[in-house]
């Protein structure tokens, strides 16, 4: 069954089993490898992408439900919020092993698009679904605040 959707501003057609998780369609078939596999059950957030404008776990999203959908992966993430987040991430040296950071950056970007000046509680709530075993959490908090400040300036 062929499914047509927009990925990073390009229309793509996927002729795959409709049960195929978006994660594996992106990675194995579109070779967009920035989105990572961590658990397969939406518990770790490494596979987070933007789906129709909202952060979504691609490992539990079957492509059969995505006809006409719009997907942005870390490779196609753009706009002022994404740029501010990635600049802050680099400047503050957030990443250690780096494996979870694509998902963290997508979640943080999604947060700032919806809530430009998030409170501590809003940051905690928005980022609680993204695990980081290197525990870069303190720097993630700091980078989100810095990105938020830079957008305001």
């Amino acid at each position, binding site marked *: 069954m062929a499914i047509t959707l927009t990925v990073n501003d390009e229309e793509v057609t996927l002729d795959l*089993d409709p*049960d*195929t*998780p978006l994660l*594996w369609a992106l*990675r*194995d*078939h579109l*070779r967009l*490898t*920035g*989105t*990572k*596999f*961590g*658990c*397969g*059950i939406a*518990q*770790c957030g*490494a596979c987070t992408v933007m789906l129709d404008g909202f952060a979504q776990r691609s490992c539990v999203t079957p492509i059969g439900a995505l006809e006409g959908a719009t997907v942005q*992966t*870390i*490779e196609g993430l753009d706009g002022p919020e994404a740029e501010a987040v*990635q600049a802050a*991430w*680099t*400047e503050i*040296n*957030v*990443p*250690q*092993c*780096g*494996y*979870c*950071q*694509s998902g963290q*950056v997508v979640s943080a970007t999604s947060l700032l698009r919806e809530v430009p000046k998030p409170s501590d509680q809003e*940051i*905690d*709530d928005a*980022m*609680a*679904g*993204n*695990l*980081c*075993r*290197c*525990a*870069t*959490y*303190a*720097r*993630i*908090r700091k980078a989100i605040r810095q990105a938020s400040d830079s957008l305001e300036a």
Partner: protein
Amino acid sequence: MHPIVKPAFAPRPTRRGFLAGTGGLILGLHLAPQARAESSAPTAPTPGAFVPNAFIRVAPDDTVTVLVKHIEIGQGANTGLPLLVAEEMDADWSQMRAEQAPSNPQLYANAAFGIQGTGGSTGLSNSYMTMRRAGAAARAMLVSAAADLWGVPAAEITVSKGVVAHGPTGNEASFGALAEAAAKGPVPEDVALKDPADFTLIGAEGITRLDARSKSTGQAEFTIDVYRDGMQVVAMVHPPKFGATVASVDDSEALAIPGVRAVRQLPSGVAIYADDTFAAFRGRDAVVVEWDESAAETRGTDEIVETFTAAARTASLVAEEAGDADAALAGAERVIEAEYVFPYLAHAAMEPLDGVIEWDGSAAEIWSGMQIPTTSHATLAGVMGLGQEAVTINTMYTGGSFGRRATPDNHFAAELANVAMAGGPGAYKLLWTRENDMQGGYYRPLTVHRLRAGLDGAGNITGWVNQLANQSIMRGSPFEAMMQGGLDPTSYEGANDLPYELPNRRLAWAEMRSPVPVLWWRAVGHTHTAYAVETFLDEVLETGGRDPVQGRLDMMRADRPRDRAVLERVAEMAGWSGPGTGDRRYGVAMARSFGSYVAQVAEVEDRDGAPHVTRVWCAVDCGLAVTPDVVRAQMEGGIGYGLSSILGEAVTLEPGGRVAQVNFDGYTPLRLPEMPRIEVSILPSAEPPSGVGEPGLPPIGPAVANAWRALSGQAVRRLPMRPA
């Protein structure tokens, strides 16, 4: 990994390869660079490059690429080692690049191990002089080339931020412009290193990690991101109990799944070969395996704990002894006793174990994150029946490890080789699921401590006995040859050589056996010894009417000034005035591990009946801090990883032997809302650099537990603190 161990099977470190015979090696590599991704794996040098030694390449475009002999697993090797080179070369930080060195123990051995490997928080410390010498040699060759070119004395030439200059004549050249000429010059035998007073990069703030950008934009290339033409994805079904083996396989349902190509029985389990990951994982779910459990671990955790506890009570293999501890306890005014139970822990790195292998029947190329490439290399070649020269290993960026990818038995390398052999010539990606990882063993050893202390009438500690029981990490591995007197130091490290004056003391160990494989897990033995010692000591000090900080200082050995200094510093940072009285309480703990000294104070409150840590102060003495921001990041990470484990992590076996935890729903690491604010102070030091990857971890558990006891009155002696 433990820093002391030197594998008996390993060649001794040699300097012979340091500045010689490197061109052929580097030119011999043949990994095609991928245009879109930033790969950490080695690439061939560009034509016209200057390759002064096995560690450095200077390209005509002025970039300086350092071949990093340690795997980048998050700890910052790909930043720290290039920084040492840049310092001695007087390069500009912006021109530095990092690549992972290939597997070659002659060129890239860890000076602490004698083979190529990363662990024991030794990466920076063992590279400190080697990389500086490499950088100084490259600088000398560039200067010599410039002197010849300009016809001026080399002594009049200066180098700063990547620019070679001769003041009197006004000549200037970049590294790239001199690269071709420098490559023709002789390699200097001996080079002078900088006076530390002249360092401009070592110890500097504002250093951006070389991998920060690529890891923030999805461009960093990990093993899981490697795709080869015609590559099949392979998923594994492993035994549901440790020590079980395959009895029979029904692959009919699996083979009926579109995209599943084959099902093969391997020594480690059953492999499903498929066209893509989704098909491989579906095949994994569909294959039906009968297991032979006759040699399997069938005890549940409760039964194992019971056995280990009984063994701890009678542990008699003495690891350390002084004075007469038994007489001291017998004559004590008061004896305090406590038993502690620490669970198996999974490393649960974010990237599950994975590797890509491609072979044509006579040669094999591997992409993976292997912490001990030298022994993995031998295992891969051995299983495949190939000469080691026919096997190439590309070390990729790795999504965490925490010890998991440093397996002395090389079980994953063997499985990868077996996947290739059973599949025939071609390309394969072996990708474990989270379930394979969580239930696959190689855990932090389950450990039981029994502690006793005797006090005199004035509250002084007169006797100290620590008995513990756990499995040996070294037993059954190549490291077993180093077990002297039957002792495995990784089982009890941190419970011996305490910084405190304890004239009558004994440390005794009982070695336990189980088919459950155990492994070093970030900070290894210190993960439980620091908790047992520092929480027990806190209770004993309180019984004796002592303050936790002052009580420790009063007992501090005169020959342990660095321990004293970090404790005094952290007390100052936290404004220590005791455990406190209100809704927030304070706990302190300290530990020396992997050559570094760390003391921490935790601020803890009660949230729904469980500890919530709001702040942590951390003082660290790691010798010279080469990259202070990386030191801080490793302290933060160690605190987070340690806090995660003591709050909510445990692998448990159900009665019968199955692992109860399957994925991150049942095994629950720390999440962002639980991360405390952390303040790190690095003590100034001129001592050589020591480790930071692990030492941040040991004190956090006992610091939190001590604060929690002050708040709740409960001494937590069975971990984790809030079971799932």
